């Protein structure tokens, strides 16, 4: 249990998937204009991550990993080279379902997220979490916690970014830096503040 709590804290703060690994930047930079939308997107990403990472774990460990097909009588087959393709396909499928659910139950959020909801499919944070899960050899329960923690970390980063951008509406930003320029600078400064936790070993 203690191990799981420290893994959660680790994935939210110390190894924040956005501000420590810089994954999932595209939707983070584009949809961080106000708190409500970014909260919606953050929750959607957290939800998708919490589901896809464990599903990918199951697929990897029962289909792809070396010797994973032993249950089918084929212990010598190693399909792990397919993991990138399969992970993306899984993420895409699950995002489709999430999109339909949001469309059905929250039209406002659906319209606010617009094109970025399907783009969660190619949100590299989600694929990144699945690949880290393989690389770090997490167990199934750890994977669930890690996927959820990474999602919460991403949510925290985008919500903080959105409120900062709302504050910066009153700023007088040089023409050349308006838009993505200032967002990159803000992200860099935020990442510097998140270095607070780097070095903690839990």
């Amino acid at each position, binding site marked *: 249990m203690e191990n799981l709590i420290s893994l959660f804290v680790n994935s939210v703060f110390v190894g924040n998937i956005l501000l420590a690994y810089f994954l999932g930047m595209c939707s983070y930079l584009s949809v961080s204009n106000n*708190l409500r939308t970014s909260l919606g997107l953050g929750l959607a990403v957290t939800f998708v991550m919490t589901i896809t990472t464990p599903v990918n774990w199951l697929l990897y460990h029962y289909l792809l990993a070396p010797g994973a097909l032993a249950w089918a009588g084929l212990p010598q087959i190693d399909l792990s080279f397919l993991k990138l393709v399969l992970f993306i396909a899984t993420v895409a499928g699950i995002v489709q379902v999430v999109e339909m659910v949001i469309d059905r139950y929250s039209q406002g959020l659906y319209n606010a997220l617009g094109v970025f909801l399907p783009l969660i499919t190619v949100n590299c944070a989600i694929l990144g979490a699945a690949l880290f899960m393989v690389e770090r050899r997490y167990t199934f329960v750890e994977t669930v916690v890690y996927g959820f923690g990474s999602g919460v970390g991403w949510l925290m980063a985008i*919500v*903080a970014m959105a*409120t*900062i951008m*709302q*504050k*910066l509406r*009153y*700023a*007088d*930003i*040089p023409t050349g*830096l308006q838009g993505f320029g*200032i967002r990159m*600078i*803000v992200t860099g*400064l*935020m990442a*510097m*503040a*998140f*270095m*607070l*936790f*780097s*070095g*903690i*070993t839990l």
Partner: protein
Amino acid sequence: MNPIRHFFHSQKKHFRPGGRLARLDSFFEAMERVFFGTDQVTAFAPHARDSITLQRYMMLVIVMLLPCLFFGMYNVGLQAFKASGQPPSFWPMFLYGAQTVLPLVIISYVFGFGWEIVFAAVRKHPISEGVFVTAMLFPLTLPPTTPWWQAALGISFGVVIGKEVFGGTGRNFLNPALTGRAFLYFAYPIQMSGDAVWTAVLNAGSQAVDAVTAATPLVIASVASTAGTVEETLAAAGYDWRTLFLGFYPDSIGASSALLCLIGAMGLILLGIASYRIILGGTLGVLAAGYLLMLFSGPTALPYLSLNPFYHLVIGGAAFGIVFMATDPVSAPHTHAARWIYGLLIGILTVLIRVFNPAFPEGIMLAILFLNVFAPLLDQLVVATRIRQRIPNV
């Protein structure tokens, strides 16, 4: 006053539109405001009737920082003389300290104010007195052995990336002085951390300033062994409660004395400049986190856990950070409730980082920056809660 008034009056025409130095108009205004009050008045209601302008506001902060600066000069000299075994006498120590500290302060002002003038001239915004406070805070947080070029680089980063890219004072979201300090910390860790940088020693050789190894109380407390309490370990190293409270130990130039920070805090609160909510919240946060950690202490646990919470307030830069850095009116939250939460979280995070993060002996700098990032969110949450609590107009 008359010659000065005459001088400004006679030079004014060069800075007006059409004059030779029209681009430096904001620089002229700033210099004039150092001597005279503003002649700008509002034409329509509402009129501000308080005498405290942004300029006075910032100048009062600087006045409150001056004791820290002078104490820092004395303390740098004192630690240097202690380390080299010379007999301590007041004036030589003070002069040596001034010789070490003043160049850093001057560099900080030249570069900080220089960037402000450049941006004011190019982007045509008025020069804000905020940069004077930034340029005073920044050198006080540096180790006394900081190379001059690094001080110049740090203040440049703080003023340009921390503030000017957002349009100047009032628009930034991080404390500019701390942004510069943190930048230096991560860019040049060798000159900014470790045991060797906190004491400057006068060397007769070619190198003017050299350093000796003297662990700061923070490091001593974090590596304290299980034999005896942490307080005893600190006292054995020569840092008893009184020394720590008064600030006679190697640390950042101006951040060591908790007594002066306490006086500064009272002054700032009485003058209505700093938010007492942030200062009290920060203090309570440090004490609460220290007390909670004490509950987990035991014979097998980390000895640092058992440190008296009040020691956390007086060692290192916690007091200085909470009083002078966290209360920055721009980067702190603006609602009352958010200020309490902000202060409390800064205090708690500072202690947690000190104890649990082996990478940073001192946590206050990044704790404040971290909460600066979340200050707008805290504000929005408080506002949203308020709106929800309203009784709707039926």
